[in-house]
């Protein structure tokens, strides 16, 4: 327990940095989902299972889906065109 918690904190820092450094939005979606998963494990290790559940639902499922929908809307829409 004393080893796994600092390790998870460092993993959170690394995955957050990966979200920022991945410049392509299509690949950034995967980084965001992995970041949500790492945050979920960290919150579970910090004895916050309710927060971990909501982070699992929001951070690694809902938010990447929102990004996917936004990317598809941007791609299928020619610029300056009314829907």
């Amino acid at each position, binding site marked *: 327990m004393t080893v796994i918690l600092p390790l998870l904190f460092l993993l959170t820092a690394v995955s957050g940095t990966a979200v920022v450094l991945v410049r392509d939005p299509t690949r950034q979606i995967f980084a965001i989902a992995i970041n949500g998963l790492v945050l979920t494990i960290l919150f579970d290790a910090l004895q916050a299972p309710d927060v971990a559940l909501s982070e699992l639902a929001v951070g690694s499922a809902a938010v990447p889906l929102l990004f996917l929908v936004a990317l598809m809307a941007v791609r299928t829409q020619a610029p*300056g065109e009314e829907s």
Partner: protein
Amino acid sequence: MSVLPYAVAAWLFGVGLYGIATSRNFIHLVGCLGVCQSATYVLLLGLGYRWGSIAPIFYDHPPGTPAVDPVMQALVLTDIVVGATLTALLLVLTVQAYKRGGSLDPEKLRPMRAGGKSGQRQDAGHTSGRVSEGGRKAS
């Protein structure tokens, strides 16, 4: 264990700010804002995680066993929901900005005008993006 959550939260916030400042795509920018928000989750939960102290609510809990602050967890729960709605709102704004401006680059975003000047009217984005792109390059 005492300094590490604060350091990780500060690092996440700083790296998210760096991403926002250097981003060239609005969708990438919204993702960096999510990293900034995860810094607050880590900070609040790291504040609430205490080892060996008396628990704040059930104070007859024997010390030495792990206990957490439920107030912080409720705060983080609210924070996550607020973050999801903020992300959705910003992505909708991004799509609308792309419809009107024709670009996802924050550097190419023009200031909003009510009617525009003569001939360069951008009313509801009826002019095609290529024309406005060419006009921007020419000017």
